């Protein structure tokens, strides 16, 4: 809860920095504050769970997911610095919006009341509607913004309706009270279904994924990086928290629906990704399929499934940030990050090619990267839960995914070098961050036990 307040203050301060003349210093201030808040948040991991004002729950789950979210924001700030040096965007506004979005994400992983859930979704999304359209003269950016806004508000509307119906059935907004009052009324189940649909939209599960390629593809790439990692972690954290709080066991109809959604998402996400030639859109669809893998553990609601979700999300977020950053670098030199434009990257910039390879290997789930362990752990939990057929579908999906991830890798390592395409990079800030993140990807893959221990405590 303190983290939420502190980041809100930081956001307001950032907005005001423009006219109180602190514009130059705002970047280091944000970084230092975020590091401080992250440290503070991690330290509160062992505190006894408590509910604040009947609105926010402070327990290990919210601390763990909150720390993950703050880490992503921090990494985003570290990586996106160069995007603002050209002066195309108003730095202060963007930073403030990202911070507000972070607050929304934090609310989402710690709500204990339906109204907080709704607030969180709105605070998370509204800044992103603006940010998606921040390249005002680019028609695709504007399209992304409008599409995201219209479909996003539609989903929020469905969510509100769901909350209202649940209120109608149980007479309360409080999760603990809903759990007790949960009855066999059809009204209640309709409400839960509507809520699940709106979450399926947020986590981009098939068939609610149509906005993803256009929004991710049209928005400025560094905003896509934030949307495809932060929003996904927050939405997954919230959805799981919701189901975990109001059910001891997912009702069978919902469980089958989730399994079906998951299988569909894995297959369609991967198939669609394999037809993409633009790496940014490819990553967008790969994000859809990754959502499918994570949905697999939802029907179980066990300690293991919670923990495997957390480990998977952590690995996914880091690898995806790296991959999108590399796409961003390519886009700076050429208009589009098509697979062909990655040709010869291994020669013109071996470092960038290497980190991209590592990120893609992780996303594909091949050892020793983090993504492999995440998948392995996820599959283990699903098989324990008795859904071996779902795992076989996921394996089929993974196989398809290797096709498109390696399409990019092959292009980087074997196309003849196109001299005009060389991406030159100064040894600088972003490079250090990329090294750290790559090491993190390998470390999570090789020594996942620390993360696992955290995961089991939440």
């Amino acid at each position, binding site marked *: 809860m303190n983290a939420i307040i502190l980041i809100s203050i930081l956001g307001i301060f950032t907005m005001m920095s423009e006219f109180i003349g602190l514009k130059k210093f705002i970047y280091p201030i944000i970084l230092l504050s975020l590091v401080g808040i992250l440290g503070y948040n991690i330290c509160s991991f062992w505190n006894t769970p408590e509910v604040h004002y009947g609105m926010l729950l402070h327990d290990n789950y919210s601390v763990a997911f909150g720390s993950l979210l703050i880490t992503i924001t921090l990494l985003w700030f570290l990586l996106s610095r160069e995007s603002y040096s050209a002066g195309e965007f108003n730095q202060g506004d963007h930073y403030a919006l990202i911070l507000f979005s972070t607050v929304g994400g934090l609310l989402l992983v710690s709500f204990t009341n339906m109204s907080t859930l709704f607030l969180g979704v709105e605070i998370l999304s509204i800044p992103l509607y603006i940010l998606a359209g921040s390249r005002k003269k680019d028609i695709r950016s504007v399209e992304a913004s409008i599409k995201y806004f219209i479909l996003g508000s539609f989903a929020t509307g469905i969510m509100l309706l769901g909350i209202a119906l649940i209120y109608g059935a149980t007479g309360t907004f409080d999760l603990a009270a809903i759990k007790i009052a949960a009855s066999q009324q059809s009204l209640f189940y309709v409400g839960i279904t509507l809520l699940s649909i709106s979450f399926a939209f947020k986590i981009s599960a098939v068939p609610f994924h149509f906005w993803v390629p256009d929004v991710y593809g049209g928005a400025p790439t560094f905003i896509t990086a934030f949307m495809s990692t932060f929003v996904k972690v927050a939405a997954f954290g919230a959805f799981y928290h919701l189901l975990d709080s109001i059910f001891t066991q997912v009702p069978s109809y919902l469980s089958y629906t989730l399994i079906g959604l998951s299988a569909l998402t894995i297959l369609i996400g991967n198939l669609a990704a394999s037809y993409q030639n633009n790496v940014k859109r490819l990553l967008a669809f790969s994000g859809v399929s990754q959502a499918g893998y994570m949905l697999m553990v939802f029907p179980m609601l066990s300690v293991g499934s919670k923990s495997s979700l957390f480990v998977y999300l952590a690995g996914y977020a880091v690898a995806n940030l790296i991959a999108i950053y590399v796409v961003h670098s390519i886009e700076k030199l050429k208009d589009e990050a098509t697979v062909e434009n990655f040709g010869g990257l291994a020669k013109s910039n071996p470092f960038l090619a290497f980190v991209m390879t590592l990120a893609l290997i992780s996303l594909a789930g091949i050892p020793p990267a983090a993504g492999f362990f995440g998948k392995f752990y996820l599959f283990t939990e699903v*098989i*324990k839960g008795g859904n071996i057929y779902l795992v076989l579908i996921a394996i089929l999906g993974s196989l398809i995914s290797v096709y498109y991830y390696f399409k990019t890798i*092959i292009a980087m390592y074997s196309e003849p070098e196109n001299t005009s395409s060389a991406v030159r990079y100064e040894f600088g800030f972003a490079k250090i961050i990329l090294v750290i993140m790559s090491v993190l990807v390998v470390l999570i893959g090789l020594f996942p036990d620390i993360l696992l221990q955290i995961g089991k405590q939440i």
Partner: protein
Amino acid sequence: MITTLLIILPLVAALLVYLAGQRLAPTVAIAATVLEFAVALYAYFTFDVAAGWNFAVNQEWIPSLGISFNIGMDGISMALVLLTTFLLPIILLSSLLSPLKDKASFYSLALIMQSALIGVFVAKDLFLFYIFWELALIPIYFICLLWGDENRRPVTFKFFIYTLFGSLLMLAAIIYLYTVTPEKSFALENIYNTDLSALEQTWVFAALFLAFGIKMPIFPLHTWQPSTYTSAPIAGTMLLSGIMLKMGIYGVIRWVLPVVPTALMNWGWLAALLSVIGIVYASIIAIRQSNYKTLIAYVSIAHVGLIAAGLFSNSVEGLQGVIAQMLAHGVNVVGILFVIEILLNRTGTLEISKLGGLRNQMPQFAVFFVVIMMASIALPSTNGFIGEFLLFVGIFNYNPYLAAVAGLTIILGAVYMLSSYQKIMLGEAKSAYNNVLDLTLIEKSILIPIVIVIFVFGLFPNLVLDLTEPAVNEILHTVNNSIPVAN
């Protein structure tokens, strides 16, 4: 400790090689592999056959999932580690013949691959085994992709998809096995102790058989292999056929036979049958090949078919034959691939019809070529003989008819090997090759150790067979103990 050293040494060497730069990279890499071989030899001479698992290390790794860094060597592992460490210096030396671009990366990848291969052979934890199994795939993929010929992109892609498909199925089987262990652990003993119904065993067997069968490869899972062998750089083909396919065979011995014995009893015949079909099929195709490297790729399928048939014979002779033949095949195929490299280096072609009469210009080469060829068609007193003999004994006891069909390999093998030798080395000398040179010093330094091993192992097979016999008995003991007694 030695086992850990064997895994870590190549990794450290890979880093050093990368840092050493292009000029020094080959020297450092070869020195490191020779050192590694010395360590393996030391392990071999201090190996205590009676003790079962030697040099074992068991360190917790991911305790919450029952995963540990659990390694050690029994006789079978020791034999394969010896093979790997013996072949690596030879493979790296042979890659000196053709100039490579970006040597440092190439040698680093080869060393990482060595580390992973050794890891596969010494892992006593199923999860660890899987990690090393997959780790071995990445370097070889990049070796084929970066240094292969002009067809490399679609070919390596096919190779990667095939093997990854197998690996993923194996992953599912591994996780399933893990969930049924009472201790929730991946350790060898616990995996051996699982109590699976016949149906469960069948599914696990199917998944594992696909994974290992693709790697070997067994007919009809072999379609990635000829094109990959043909388009990979020579060192890549050597790594693939000399060592990597042994991963599949070893995997069956270690992780299939003792784990799913009932399924083996019910379905082993099918696997053996497919293997034997593969022998005949590949041999016939080999006879028709015009490119010598592709021919060798098919020959490799035929040889592996025989080994695989022995795997499912459920007898000491059969399994001992499998191990002996694995070692012999590893050495011989690397030898014959090196012969190919020399041919390519001198004449610029591998089309058999364009070659001929080389013996006059290259008498020394002709001698080495004959010896290696005889070894690969299993002439007595060469290393190929003892393995093939034991395999036939094992298969004959299992099913005489199968042995009869498999026996065709002796005749067909002689046909394709001798006729290709005849076409390449004998006959009328072609004027284009009047000036080719005989072997250089470095080439001899590669061929001589190979020939020494061919004869030493051919004449004293017990050097290895004594080493592996207790381990083989142990495996068969586990297999036969866990088959429910029919009543």
